[in-house]
């Protein structure tokens, strides 16, 4: 394994690990606060039980998310010092803002988790809301920084150096809004459906549990709207990518030749004529640039990007369909728990949002290669000169595998231990 590949792999493992906790850290406070608010208004103790259990789970997940996020902030330099040296002054701004947002999140999570008996009911609920808001803000700032790597703005490139720096213009880069929207919705869809899915599964075993019914309802209330809106955000994203990141679009669609009225490949050799032109430009005959538009050396790993993209779309579509189903049942005032097939559909959705998000990040990150900053700096030129990078890569991979196993086991025990299981 070359040092470059080891560095990329370590970054990939670190991101893939952290993203799960980031998604949960953004969305879980919303569920927690929702349950607490229902308890305060209805007085039903089941909601208090839910809020406290979710808070315990969030405590574990947030801690692992915080430390794995710290790893990433250092790894930007440890693995990619030339990238940070070049780009730090342009794109450090959203990271600095994220620092403050994360501070707010950590402070009020401490108040929320440990303050049940120490602060007033109102202050407790407000603390939870602040955790939810600052969590979403943190995520958005980090995604903005990533978006800049895809569509860098706010500087002039002179002899390999960035001059005329404008950090605000860099933050307002074209990919920032579609990416931030797409990722924020992903957090609510993935986490909401994960929670709903676990409780749907437990409801299948015990149909009368009011605990699981309420938990399922809150999970769907957060997850389903986000999953239904996600295809719209995805469309916005796709049209953005078509205009601003044509090589990535070509790789996602495995479109080798530039063509007008390009077909959409939906998998297993099936193609929708002119589908890609329609989706990407809302025009059936639009010209879509293929991979032939750039030299072979600047192609990303096309099969992997294409596969990742298709996996994301498939899983996201499944969540959206289940979300529509849930909305239909809710509108008809049907009891979710009485619908065995629906419960199974939700149970199957448990991991789908996380897998879709991972696949989406694979598509966008691998689709940007060989660039770390598109058109400015190649990944190979950003990597640290330090040799032997396979060692830290192996260490972090083992560490994260162990942590993932422990966290899964702890959460499993939390759920199994619940008196309602």
């Amino acid at each position, binding site marked *: 394994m070359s040092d470059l590949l080891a560095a990329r792999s370590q970054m990939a493992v670190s991101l893939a690990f952290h993203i799960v906790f980031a998604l949960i850290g953004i969305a879980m406070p919303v569920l927690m606060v929702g349950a607490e608010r229902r308890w305060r208004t209805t007085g039903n103790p089941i909601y208090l039980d839910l809020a406290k259990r979710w808070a315990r789970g969030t405590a574990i997940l947030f801690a692992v998310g915080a430390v794995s996020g710290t790893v990433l902030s250092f790894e930007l330099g440890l693995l990619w010092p030339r990238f940070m*040296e070049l780009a*730090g002054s342009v794109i450090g701004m959203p990271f600095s803002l994220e620092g403050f947002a994360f501070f707010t999140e950590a402070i009020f999570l401490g108040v929320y988790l440990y303050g049940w008996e120490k602060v007033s009911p109102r202050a407790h609920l407000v603390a939870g809301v602040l955790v939810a808001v600052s969590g979403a803000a943190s995520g958005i700032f980090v995604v903005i920084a990533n978006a800049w790597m895809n569509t860098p703005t706010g500087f002039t490139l002179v002899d390999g150096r960035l001059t005329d720096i404008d950090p605000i213009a860099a933050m307002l880069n074209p990919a920032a809004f579609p990416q931030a929207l797409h990722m924020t919705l992903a957090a609510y869809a993935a986490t909401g459906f994960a929670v709903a899915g676990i409780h749907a599964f437990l409801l299948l075993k015990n149909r009368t549990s009011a605990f699981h019914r309420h938990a399922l309802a809150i999970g769907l209330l957060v997850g389903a709207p986000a999953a239904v809106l996600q295809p719209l955000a995805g469309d916005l994203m796709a049209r953005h990518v078509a205009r601003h990141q044509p090589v990535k679009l070509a790789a996602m669609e495995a479109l080798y030749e530039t063509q007008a009225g390009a077909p959409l490949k939906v998998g297993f050799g099936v193609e929708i004529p002119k589908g890609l032109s329609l989706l990407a430009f809302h025009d059936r005959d639009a010209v879509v640039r293929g991979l032939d538009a750039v030299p072979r050396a600047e192609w990303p790993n096309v099969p992997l990007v294409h596969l990742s993209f298709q996996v994301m779309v498939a899983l996201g579509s499944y969540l959206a369909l289940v979300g529509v189903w849930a909305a239909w049942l809710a509108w008809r005032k049907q009891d979710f728990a009485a619908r065995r097939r629906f419960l199974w559909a939700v149970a199957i959705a448990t991991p789908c949002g996380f897998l879709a998000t991972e696949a989406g990040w694979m598509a966008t990150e691998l689709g940007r290669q060989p660039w770390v900053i598109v058109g400015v700096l190649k990944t190979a030129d950003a990597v640290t000169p330090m040799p032997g990078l396979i060692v*830290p890569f192996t260490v972090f991979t083992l560490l994260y595998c162990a942590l993932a196993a422990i966290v899964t086991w702890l959460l499993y025990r939390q759920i199994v231990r619940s008196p309602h299981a």
Partner: protein
Amino acid sequence: MTLADLLAGVIMVALNAYVLLGGADFGGGVWDLLARGPRKARQRVLIEHAIGPVWEANHVWLILAVVLLFTCFPSAFARLAIALHVPLTLVLIGIVLRGSAFTFRSYGGEQEQEKYWGRVFAVASLVTPVLLGVAVGAVASGAVTELTPDSGFVAAYVAPWVAPFPFAVGLFALACFAFLAAVYLTLEAEDDDLREDFRGRAIGAGVLVFVAAALGLLLSPPASPVGAKLVAAFPPWAPALHLLTGIAAVSAFVALWKRQYRAARIAAAAQVSLILWGWGIAQFPYLLPPDLTISEAAAPAVTLRLVLGAVGIGAVLLFPSLYYLFKVFKGTRG
């Protein structure tokens, strides 16, 4: 004072807060490891209660220092990350293990595993401060220089930090963190026996701070061009700073001796802060001695201005929130 100096100062403030707050959380872990005597279990419970609600917020000071460093001084960040790749990676592993194990212990539930997580938490709390101190020691000794293409692995990635002086600073950092934690815990303890336990530990750690400081002075590389530059750059009011540090240190001991714990907390925090600023001022105007100055490493003025604005607005939001956090969890007892 230039804008870049001001932002270097802001980073120092973040580091100072991290040392006083996050450092004490590491120190708590050290006392968990060294818990003994008839009140062993109660010592551990006290430490857990003291750290639980605040450690994540305290930890963010380090993240803030890092993001401000790479935004305002990107070339210094790159150089640090290359030369100190190994110790910083070890720090990260320590941070991951410390935080995860602490949370697993608090929320794990089962006695047998709690013991195991407690051990991981405590050992990581012992090792991480040493490595953080090693990184600071490597910077202070002027060993974090620009990579030359022909330098071998050892010269480039090992020699900057595997030296007596950085490890003396590592020991010193550990002693300071343990000292701060013990002093704070005298105020958090709810009965006299437990308070006496930590009073004794605070005095012991305070002595270790002196020993480690003396060792550091003994091992510092005075003959190197760095040492000369450091001395040359020393401001005329440096002796006053040393005097103040000495007064704070003596006051901390006297206050501990007389069981005036609030005064001891103020004196101990002042002592450690003054030592940190003494280092910063001794290096000035160098960010990474012997050659990289604050102004050379600084990002363009537009970035610095924006970050300063963000820091100002952030501080307005942050300080009341932090005040609230500490009032809720630390207010009733100290």
